[in-house]
């Protein structure tokens, strides 16, 4: 099942609100069928636990928390497929940035104020 030695390269926009954001690039082992969120979870465990990404349900596309941009397109990270090439990951451009890929996506009435 796994494609021997293939990798995906994730170029991730990093930084918190008020900071100058930057891109950091990481290689992730590629396996056929994986999601972009699988790649991000692998990165947190194996390379850098400080990468911030919002998710709850991991795989079911039920919580709808993992909305990010992949190559300029808004997707759910849990259903967007990882591909064996460079992919650019960025926070949603139309939502307030919190950190890295995390944005303020809750409706105003459900936010802590």
């Amino acid at each position, binding site marked *: *099942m796994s494609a021997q030695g293939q990798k995906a390269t994730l170029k991730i926009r990093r930084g*918190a*609100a008020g900071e100058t954001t930057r891109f950091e690039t990481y290689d992730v082992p590629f*396996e*056929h*069928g*994986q*999601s972009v969120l699988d790649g991000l*979870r692998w990165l*947190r*465990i*194996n390379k850098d*636990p*400080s*990468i*911030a*990404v919002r*998710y*709850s*349900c*991991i*795989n*079911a*596309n*039920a*919580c*709808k*928390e993992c909305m990010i941009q992949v190559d300029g397109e808004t997707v*759910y990270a*849990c*259903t967007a*497929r990882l591909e064996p090439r460079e992919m650019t990951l960025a926070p949603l451009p139309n939502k307030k940035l*919190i*950190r*890295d890929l*995390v944005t*303020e*996506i*809750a409706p105003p*009435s*459900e*936010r*802590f*104020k």
Partner: protein
Amino acid sequence: MHLEPLLISTDVLIIGSGAAGMYAAIEASRDGAQVLLADRSLIGRGGATVMAQMTVAVALGEETPDDPQYHYANTIAAGRGLCDDKLAQLLCEDAPECIREMDYWGVGWARKDGHITATTAPGHDRPRCVYVDFLNTGPAVSKTLRTAMARNPNIRKAGDLCVVDLIVSDGECTGAVAYHLGTGAPVLIAAKATVLATGGLTRLYARNSASTNMAGDGYALALRAGATLIDMEFVQFFPIGHLAPRLVGMDPIMWDPFRYKLGGQLLNGRMEEFTARYGSDEDGKYVLTRDLATYAITKEVEAGRDSPHGGAYLSFQHCTETQLRDAFGPVIDRLAANGIDLTKTPVEVAPIAHYHMGGVKADVTMASDVPGLFVAGEVVGGANGANRLSGNAVTEALVFGRRAGRSAAERCRRVPVPALRAQDTKAALDLINDEGADGSPANTAAAIADLQAVMTKDVGPFRTAATLNRALSGLAAITAEHGDHPAGEHGSFDMRRLDWFDMRNMLTVAHVVTQCALNRIESRGAHQREDFPQMSPQWQVRQRVALHDGKLAISTEPAAAKALAS
């Protein structure tokens, strides 16, 4: 940098916004209380409810005559002699009202000929399990409750709020210390009553069917606040969690509704039916209870008769394309997008951590042993004994949530708003304001994966003294690495810090589960000791866990004799 905490005052604080928390919020506000509904994730999105694609058990009797007493009898039988009679009774008796109220709020229970239709899940003596098509029960329940709350000005909602500890003053719970994930700011919440609705502990296991925020927080918070935990050794594994091929955008427990509607065949790696070997002949119908199915699959795998990825095959090749589409409509397209055609190939399934029977000890008002602290949903222990009957999880979320909200509001009419004392909040605030561990801290996400590996390998559905002792050693090593100072920084959305606070709870709860499993030298329901394979009458007891001077104190109490129904 020491941040001054924000102070919030409320009548009722509810922690966790799955079905239990949301129903509690609605009920408490209906009884006149001001509510703060807090969740460490987004409101109504995380937790287990939104993931529940299956059914909800309730004796409505619309199609087939039924009565809560029959539902109760099945619940007690599934619980293998350990159910708390009163909680099980409450669960079954209040279920119809809650299910009908959900119907009134527009959840959309599947109907046939004008009646709410029910299916027969394993362990039930008649069709009793209602659902929302297609594979949409949990999301529909969550959305309906969120919408019902939206119209209510007395419920204030606070997402991204991570509770670090409950506040206890002179033995009573007076609120909670939390921090806001978005800013890292500490928050003090003073509450006349607090409801824990944080769900279970499935995240302790590598393969699990719930959200990433189901890591036993509520058990650890309650234990540190002085409450009693019971039945902590009973972790339910869902036998046919999806294993292969890789499937994205689908819940791993999705095959259960398929089995309700279409039967399906469990086959070993040699394409042979095998469940009869373990005492249950399916005969094309879905009657195999969860503990037996988990046992049968695990034993086939151990005997070397596993499917390529280490599980069993589940085949729907007997179904036609039309039958599949009639039963599951758009889901068949989602499967096709994943390259799966059920008419041509079977899928692979294996047991997956799904639910926790144990939890906080509570009475029928949902009060814990700590005045001011109530519990609701999966965090409650006892109603389901040693094994939960299919369909009772969402039911207990609704029933116990409603009851906890009512009890919390009732307390608010009796007690004043507590004045928080610095001495009761200092330890938790110091943790939140901690500058972080020195040097280069270990990878917090990897530490969680390590804990999950220990629990999966050695504290799964089948245990021995050897595996459990090995797990205790493994957990002790991870605890030592975890240390007393939070990782990361107290800035905005530092995932290392969130991991560290999660691990603080996960380590405590993992230790409790393992120790209770080691103590119980028999096999019962979801707890199977391979070195003690028989159920023993001496062990028809509950283990109670409390914290005394920072040390676990475990004692036993007899379970009601009348509950020994199977």
